[in-house]
């Protein structure tokens, strides 16, 4: 995909696009970084987002968008390199370190991020956050998973249905 280079001038300056969050904050980023989003890539290919126009993102608030763009800027060089088959081990280790630190955040921020990554179709970010949430629940019992994810304790009615469900699995209280 030649998208990231399509707007480059002869002087080598990277093409910039403007993204506008739901609370009307404007973010100016390189088209190459924004193009990690499959959704935005189409608009950018069509020449959108440049100049004073900006691309409105009514589903993403400024705090989330800022975080999303932090990810995109960091990953854009590797993505432009076709998944970075030629990346050095040092580069890969640096990205891995960044990723690990990047998702070391509050659950509510993780949720906002994965929603934004889903809406903007940023595959790498979706997988990164999905893996983090999966890591938070792996090895836990069903009740621990409910508590970890902030589900309320089951009501008596729900508990009864859960018990019935357990019986489907052959479990019996002794």
């Amino acid at each position: 995909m030649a998208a990231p280079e399509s707007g480059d001038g002869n002087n080598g300056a990277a093409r910039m696009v403007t993204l506008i969050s739901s609370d009307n904050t404007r973010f100016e980023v390189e088209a190459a970084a924004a193009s990690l989003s499959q959704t935005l890539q189409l608009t950018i290919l069509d020449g959108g987002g440049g100049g004073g126009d900006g691309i409105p993102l009514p589903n993403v608030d400024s705090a989330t968008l800022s975080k999303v763009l932090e990810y995109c800027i960091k990953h854009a060089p590797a993505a432009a390199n076709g998944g970075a088959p030629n990346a050095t081990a040092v580069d890969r280790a640096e990205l891995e370190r960044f990723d690990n630190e990047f998702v070391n955040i509050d659950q509510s921020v993780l949720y906002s991020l994965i929603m934004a990554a889903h809406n903007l179709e940023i595959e790498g970010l979706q997988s990164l956050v999905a893996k983090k949430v999966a890591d938070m629940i792996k090895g836990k019992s069903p009740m621990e998973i409910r508590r970890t994810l902030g589900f309320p304790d089951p009501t008596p009615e729900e508990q009864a249905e859960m018990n019935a469900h357990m019986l489907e699995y052959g479990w019996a209280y002794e």
Partner: protein
Amino acid sequence: MLTGHRLLPGPASLVSPLDNHDILTKILTHLPPVPSSIPRISLVCRQWSHLVTDPDFLRLFRAHHRKAPLLGFFTRSRFYPALDSPDCIPTDHFNLGIDNPERWSWYILNCRHGRVLFVNRSQRQFLVWAPITGEQQRLPFPQEFCSNKSVVRNGVVNCVASEIGHVHGSCHTCPFQVILLGCNKNGFTASVYSSRTNAWGNTISLVSDHRMDHTIFCSPTVVGNSICTLLTVPSLSILQFDFILESLAVIEAPSDAPELALYQDRWQFLIAPADAAGGLTFLFLSGFTARLWKRRINSDGGAGWVLETTVDLSEFLPLSSAVNKRPPRILGFVEEDNAMLLCSEDDSFMIHVGSMRYKKVTRTLPRCPLHPFTCFYPAGNIYIACLCLDHL
């Protein structure tokens, strides 16, 4: 009605991503493929239960992980779990359900793609068993082998699912083949059973002076579209049956491999794939010394063996003491991991053939041939669900 879940109070605009089917699917496919994962999450709430028992989810889960986990090993008589609690599947859970004395006339030949293959030479039958479902199917020997013209030596079960992007590991309901290798007074014979046609195909023969020697243990290995097994008489070589082309061939072992005239009972052999293109690896273990050859295609189109590495396992593995210890023994080969299973006097190891990286097996295993069972454990399994609920 047990609903999905409600978020704790938060910003009003925040819609839980866990209510989004695609996002929840993405999160849950990232759970490790160990047996307890899916039963556990299926008990979190109805919505999750429906999601993780959906065949489409299970397909994505397998496709994401690519490789089924190793659950344990079958021997002739029982199952030995490989994982620790809560993923440890108890021995009794996989029970063939055939009592003695008949049980003792069934010998295990192979375990692959979710099925175990047994042979009963006195009844002239094979038994194909899917431990996950308990389903059993008995197959009569093909005609050539019923009349005693040929003797059954090795067999391999092979999933032939035609689904695009199929990932092996949940194949117990997929169509399968049984690939049979035998010998007769003129050489070797092979035949392929297809569950689709419920019939054996043609008998393929190769006239040869070589013989199989069943006193040397070397389990048959699937390499690409071939089964490879060791031949020892009159010289060390490999019998290769290509079950797609239906052709048998004998390949000479590396010329610098040991002279069988000097054979010692502590010699052991392993044949393994060298690459995805069907290349071969030949491993010879004498005492603590492992030598490993790879068969490469030369520029003239011919193939030749190259000695890749020689490893002293007494220095390489963390053995408590190699002094006065019995040498390690090759117990089996895990195809999915391209790893041999090796036991020393005190420990068992999985060693990747090629890189020779190893990891210790935490469970105690017997010193006998082991047939690895790799499988994605499906949801809705009674026993595992019970295990997971212990801490509810």
